[in-house]
């Protein structure tokens, strides 16, 4: 097949292989925890598919590299070698290396690098350990090839013993693409001279495909003594050592040819751009669309005949239309919903690596892996979670001796938990470590001038300080240092997804970081607020309450207005000021104060009034216009006009900056 023809399958192959690598990784980790032998088979199968696919799709370097790992696995599988920590470690690094290779394959770069070469040697060396000296080198060099020549000459007596060359060759044909060329030189010249029970034929067989010598030899196992057999590798493919040189120009040439397609793929970024959808979901969709068509044709019959007697039927049709549209919407949304397991799955490995490096014992608990959430949210939740997990192991959990001193078991527990709560998904990262050190945080905050003193501050308020940009860096001497590094980034990332981060922490008992996220970014529930002649959508999740205030409840202070709400003073943001709307209501007692929560703080949004609740389909303002501060997107209202969706967190930040200015 042509290069271009293969390219479209390569993407599928890469995606499948990345899944295979995930399986390998999780199985290896399970094996490390004392999993059963079935896991070895799972790992082996994954490696085997990658190897075969790589050879088929034009990645010979990858194929030969994976082969080394596969050979090692084969020895484990067949019981020739016991699996131990060092092998698991080596195989885990192999998985990483293959991921790198796939990334380079996607970017159209040469696959091999120094790491791959080094690892290949390590794998080979590991193989060498278990095999009697001598013959190792020779065997390995020829162990695997993409084409083989097998010279097979049965002895005359072979047929009589019940071994049929036909069966053997058929078996060989199962391994790859086979072509047998018969040899007739031993065949008697006359029919009369032929003894039918003796075999006088011989064959030269070429076999194409990534086949191991051992697999071929296995076919002839039973007839070893009854034939002359020679198995030779055909070196049509460059040997591994020459591979980088040989393939570089090819890769370059392919680059030019596929430049357009490759660039498009790269632009799609590391986040994969396709979703696998189960047939059930698709069938459901087709079913719903069918219903919709029926309803439409039913409504069509009313065209031009607006007879009062048929109003009831028309209403029924509209109700049906509404129901089907809603179901269709839910099902389509369902397509984008994927289990959070794909994010969770990267943590066992990470936790293992970090805890080993830090000399801590960590038990990772995953709860609610099947919780589904929107693919976009899923892809963006990963980084903040990595941050939280790393922090939890690095700074939250203590070393075994410290834990013993504190009367806890050596083994620290890190728990990742996902669940649905209303229209939100809640992801919690908790540990049973030391918890936040209140005194250290307060001291640091005072030193940085963030607060005057820690007195009167609730634990939550103190914990909240670690979200301040740049708070708590290496300059701090306590063991808590770094706990705040990047926490502002975590909060910002989560806020960008329309979510919030909160902390619960008990000193000495551990801490929990809770991320609350909307299920989907595509549709939000919102309240429509009128401001002047405009309408704005305020996301329902951020609304706490709306109240009508008396004019005297709002006090002007330097830099803005405040009002008292349940014992707290909250700043007022007048939406008509923030967005510059004319003809808006300015008198406090004639408008409405909507108390909203965003970016960890509460503010009052002053609007003319609330019109009603509705679901808003979010249209990106960035994609269609440009990014606007305080606005997270736009939606189209029932009458066709455009309403902007208020970005509460952004608005709060905007207000903060104005105040400072």
């Amino acid at each position, binding site marked *: 097949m042509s290069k271009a023809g293969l390219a479209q399958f390569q993407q599928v192959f890469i995606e499948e292989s990345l899944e295979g690598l995930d399986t390998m990784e999780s199985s290896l980790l399970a094996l490390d925890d004392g999993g059963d032998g079935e896991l070895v088979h799972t790992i082996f199968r994954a490696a085997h598919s990658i190897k075969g696919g790589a050879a088929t799709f034009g990645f010979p370097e990858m194929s030969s590299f994976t082969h080394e790992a596969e050979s090692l696995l084969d020895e484990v599988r067949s019981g020739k070698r016991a699996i131990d920590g060092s092998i698991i470690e080596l195989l885990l690094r192999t998985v990483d290396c293959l991921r790198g290779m796939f990334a380079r394959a996607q970017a159209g770069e040469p696959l091999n690098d120094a790491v791959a070469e080094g690892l290949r040697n390590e794998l080979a060396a590991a193989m060498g350990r278990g095999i009697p000296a001598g013959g190792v080198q020779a065997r390995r060099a020829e162990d695997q090839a993409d084409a083989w020549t097998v010279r097979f000459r049965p002895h005359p007596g072979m047929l009589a013993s019940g071994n049929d060359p*036909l069966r053997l060759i058929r078996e060989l044909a199962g391994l790859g693409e086979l*072509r047998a*060329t*018969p040899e*007739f030189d031993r065949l008697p010249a006359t*029919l009369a001279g032929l003894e039918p029970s003796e*075999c006088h*034929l011989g064959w030269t067989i070429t076999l194409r495909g990534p086949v191991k010598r051992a697999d071929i030899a296995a076919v002839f196992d039973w007839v070893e003594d009854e034939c002359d057999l020679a198995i030779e590798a055909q070196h049509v493919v460059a040997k591994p050592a020459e591979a980088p040189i040989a393939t570089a120009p090819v890769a370059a040439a392919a680059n030019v040819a596929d430049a357009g397609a490759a660039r498009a793929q790269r632009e799609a970024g590391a986040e994969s751009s396709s979703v696998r959808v189960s047939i059930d979901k698709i069938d459901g969709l087709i079913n719903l669309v069918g219903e919709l068509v029926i309803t439409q044709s039913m409504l069509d019959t009313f065209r031009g005949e607006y007879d009062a007697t048929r109003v009831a039927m028309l209403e029924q049709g509209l109700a049906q239309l509404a129901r089907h549209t809603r179901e269709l919407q839910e099902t389509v949304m369902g397509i984008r919903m994927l289990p959070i397991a794909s994010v969770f799955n990267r943590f066992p490995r990470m936790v293992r690596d970090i805890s080993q490096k830090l000399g801590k014992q960590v038990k990772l608990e995953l709860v609610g892996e099947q919780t589904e959430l929107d693919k976009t949210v899923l892809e963006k939740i990963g980084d903040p979670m990595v941050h939280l997990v790393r922090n939890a192991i690095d700074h939250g959990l203590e070393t075994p001796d410290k834990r013993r001193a504190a009367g806890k078991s050596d083994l620290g527990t890190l728990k990742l938990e996902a669940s649905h709560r209303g229209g939100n998904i809640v992801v919690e990262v908790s540990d049973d470590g030391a918890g936040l050190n209140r005194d250290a945080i307060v001291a640091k905050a005072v030193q940085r001038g963030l607060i005057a003193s820690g007195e009167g501050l609730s634990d939550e308020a103190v914990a909240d300080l670690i979200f301040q940009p740049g708070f708590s860096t290496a300059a701090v001497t306590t063991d808590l240092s770094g706990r705040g590094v990047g926490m502002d980034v975590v909060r910002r990332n989560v806020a960008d997804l329309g979510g919030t981060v909160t902390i619960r922490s008990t000193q000495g008992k551990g801490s929990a970081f809770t991320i609350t996220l909307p299920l989907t970014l595509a549709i939000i529930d919102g309240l429509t607020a009128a401001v002047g002649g405009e309408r704005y959508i305020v996301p329902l999740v951020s609304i706490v309450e709306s109240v009508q205030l008396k004019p005297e409840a709002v006090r002007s202070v330097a830099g803005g207005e405040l009002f008292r709400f349940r014992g707290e003073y909250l700043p007022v943001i007048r939406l008509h000021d923030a967005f510059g709307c004319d003809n808006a209501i300015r008198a406090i007692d004639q408008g409405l104060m909507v108390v909203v929560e965003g970016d960890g703080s509460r503010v009052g949004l002053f609007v003319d009034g609330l019109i009603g609740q509705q679901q808003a389909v979010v249209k990106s303002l960035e994609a269609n216009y440009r990014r606007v501060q305080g606005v997270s997107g736009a939606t189209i209202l029932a009458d066709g006009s455009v309403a902007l969706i208020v970005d509460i967190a952004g608005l709060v930040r905007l207000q903060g900056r104005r105040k400072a200015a």
Partner: protein
Amino acid sequence: MPATADKHSEDATGRGESRSMGKATAQGKGESEARVIALPPDFRLAELAAVKAELLEALEAPAVNIDGAAVERVDTAALQLLVAFRRESTARGQSPAWHGVSTVMRDAASLLGLAQVLELPAPMPA
């Protein structure tokens, strides 16, 4: 049974019976009748002595047709026998024609690389 379209396939039942047909075949050398040898359904080592005898006899005939439509099982020895027959038959100026080849036989012959030397006809739609 995956019989190929063949006007003589009814002869498959008359295995071992080498009878003369009442008409000359187009492939025959012209002046006389062609023998039809029907290969047995179990065309394997144990049956080969009989088939060999038949084939030896056929070598003496002016023309011969082989019918393999009934073959359900075949082994290397059987195909080897056919190769040997074919070689000698061709050397004698006969040009043995096929009256039908079962799928089993065709597959086996191509696996062993013998389809060409046996001059198996191109597969016909069943």
